């Protein structure tokens, strides 16, 4: 199935991945999206733009990120060898900066002076505030007031970087509501403002553009595993909220039919409890935030509240390309509960000396289940999308520890 499709041809000119994706926004934003689409089409192959992006990724972000062979963990799990793609070692501590560096260069070329962003866990907000500081642009970050509470270190980081953080009190007060509010800001200030979306969702061209910027993860991983092991990996594992770290790792391997690919959603308290954030596992297709994709919704098409211990996965939708990859069967999407993610978090801390983000801990937990089903000469690349410093207060509170 996967080997008959030319994945580089998606999305189509109107932003569709099969029935998913597209351009579902109010008329006021259409001109801005057309401008962005045209600008991105012009610069994505422009040697000068690419050179500037590569320079920033190398010298500011610190790329390439290492592919680290977690030998002790692999031995303990007793199966495939675990290779960690260390996006946690990027400047700002997560993969998010790969995208904000790219979008900021576009914003500069479009002559915009103001940058806005939505954020859940705060990683994308920090990465946006970082790049705005560097370019001397005004930066406003929308964040659900629930997330402001559970991610206070990142809120402070954004403020240190000069950004204005606006707590959003509407709806469920999480990432989806932050996105609504950012869209409202953009509609109002569309002339001078560039909206830096943090994941592979939203109206075309965002899912494609963010994917392209994040594909540096998969391109590097591919070269690194070939250099270190002389062959491609047997499996890839990454967590999926909106899905930008996952698509970044997966996309350069989609045409390699022998590479099994696993996306991991947040099962929260469990898929059967209804308290989770797993639209691909337990949702159905609908339209939200500019694209058609799998959603968590009720029988009347209202978006329902989601739950995950990880703020970065606490979102009722998912990038449209993931919806398509699920339907065509190229990627298998599983789910990991809060408790399983926490256990994996501790395991990685103690066996490898790496404190992973709670988001990434979902991928680690899934790899733990997958590894024993493979031989010890097989390879699993796990995307360690972010570091866990931001989560220590959440974890301490859950475990009854006062810091």
């Amino acid at each position, binding site marked *: 199935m996967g080997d008959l499709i030319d994945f580089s041809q998606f999305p189509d000119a*109107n932003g569709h991945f099969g029935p998913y994706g*597209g*351009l*579902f*926004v*109010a*008329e*006021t*934003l*259409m*001109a*801005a999206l057309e401008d962005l689409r045209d600008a991105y089409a012009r610069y994505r192959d422009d040697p000068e733009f690419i050179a500037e992006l590569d320079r920033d990724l190398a010298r500011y972000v610190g790329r390439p990120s290492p592919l680290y062979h977690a030998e002790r963990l692999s031995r303990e799990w007793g199966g495939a060898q675990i290779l960690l793609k260390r996006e946690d070692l990027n400047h700002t501590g997560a993969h998010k900066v790969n995208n904000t560096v790219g979008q900021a260069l576009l914003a500069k070329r479009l002559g915009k002076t103001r940058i806005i962003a939505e954020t859940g866990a705060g990683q994308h907000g920090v990465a946006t505030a970082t790049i705005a500081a560097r370019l001397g642009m005004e930066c406003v970050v929308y964040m659900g007031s629930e997330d402001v509470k559970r991610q206070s270190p990142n809120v402070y980081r954004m403020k240190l970087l000069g950004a204005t953080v606006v707590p959003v009190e*509407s*709806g469920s007060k999480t990432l*989806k*509501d932050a996105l*609504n509010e950012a*869209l*409202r800001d953009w*509609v*109002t*200030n*569309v*002339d001078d403002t560039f909206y830096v979306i943090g994941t592979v969702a939203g109206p075309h061209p965002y899912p494609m553009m963010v994917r392209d910027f994040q594909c540096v993860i998969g391109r590097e991983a591919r070269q690194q595993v070939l250099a270190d092991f002389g062959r491609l990996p047997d499996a890839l594992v990454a967590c999926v909220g909106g899905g930008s770290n996952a698509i970044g790792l997966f996309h350069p391997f989609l045409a390699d039919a022998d590479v099994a690919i696993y996306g991991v959603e947040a099962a929260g308290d469990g898929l059967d409890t209804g308290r989770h954030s797993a639209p691909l596992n337990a949702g159905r*297709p*609908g*339209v*939200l*935030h*500019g694209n*058609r994709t799998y*959603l968590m*919704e009720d*029988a*009347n*098409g*209202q*978006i*329902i509240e989601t739950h995950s211990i990880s703020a970065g996965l606490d979102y009722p939708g998912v990038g449209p390309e993931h919806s398509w990859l699920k339907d065509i069967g190229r990627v298998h999407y599983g789910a990991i509960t809060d408790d399983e993610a926490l256990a994996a978090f501790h395991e990685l801390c103690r066996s490898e000396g790496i404190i992973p983000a709670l988001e990434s801990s979902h991928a680690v937990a899934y790899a733990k289940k997958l590894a024993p089903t493979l031989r010890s000469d097989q390879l699993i690349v796990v995307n360690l999308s972010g570091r866990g410093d931001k989560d220590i207060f959440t974890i301490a509170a859950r475990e009854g520890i006062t810091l």
Partner: protein
Amino acid sequence: MSRIATRFAALAAAGRQALIPYITAGDPDLATTEALLHTLVANGADVIELGVPFSDPMADGPVIQRACERALATGTSLHDVLALVQRFRRQDAQTPVVLMGYLNPVEVMGYTAFAQAAAAAGVDGVLTVDLPPEESHELNLALVEHGLDPIYLLAPTSRDERIRKVAAAARGYLYYVSLKGVTGSAALDTAEVARRVEHIKTLVDVPVGVGFGIRDAVTAAAVARVADAVVVGSALVSRVEQLAATPERMHAEIGGLLAEMRRAMDVGVATA
């Protein structure tokens, strides 16, 4: 000819402009909305835009966001809204009703099932805020097949090429969003709106209504001088929010504001 086209033709023949109030269905409950629909008609509404509540109203300001939250808190669904229109139709066979909302509830019901049910209930037009013509082909087919008018938005940012494209898909009327922003935003610049609407009318054949930021009779009259219709939403919805506990006052104030707009539009145009 559809009920909307008939209404606009009659208004044009009389040299008048349409007054189009918006309220959110189910805010704070369906009985209140049903009573309000008749108050709107009694005070000069020519067409009614009835909001279908959605959990994530991205193009709406705080007033209509809260209206959606109140409506959803009492469980208002798209089915309930259609049943409401059906009850309204039993008493009012003339006033066109346009459903205004977001795509997902329609998507879940299914385009054909929705178009069928809406037509049967007596709905006349459907304005789907987050559905530009690029994505609306399939829903448009279903709507037109069932005699419903697809209504579209135009914005200050719409370029000529887009205005023509949107107009090609639209029936009934076009809704020009008078400012860059969400519903209920700050007061609009009537001179700028006049300039834009005059330009749009050179490009399209359907009537052009103007909304967003119209909250008093003076602005309504100014807009009526250049547009074919005046849409008022947040100014009414904020009165529902403040006065729902005292229904008599709510009906009096909402009816009063609408009647005042109606008078100002008629006088303002006559003396212009």
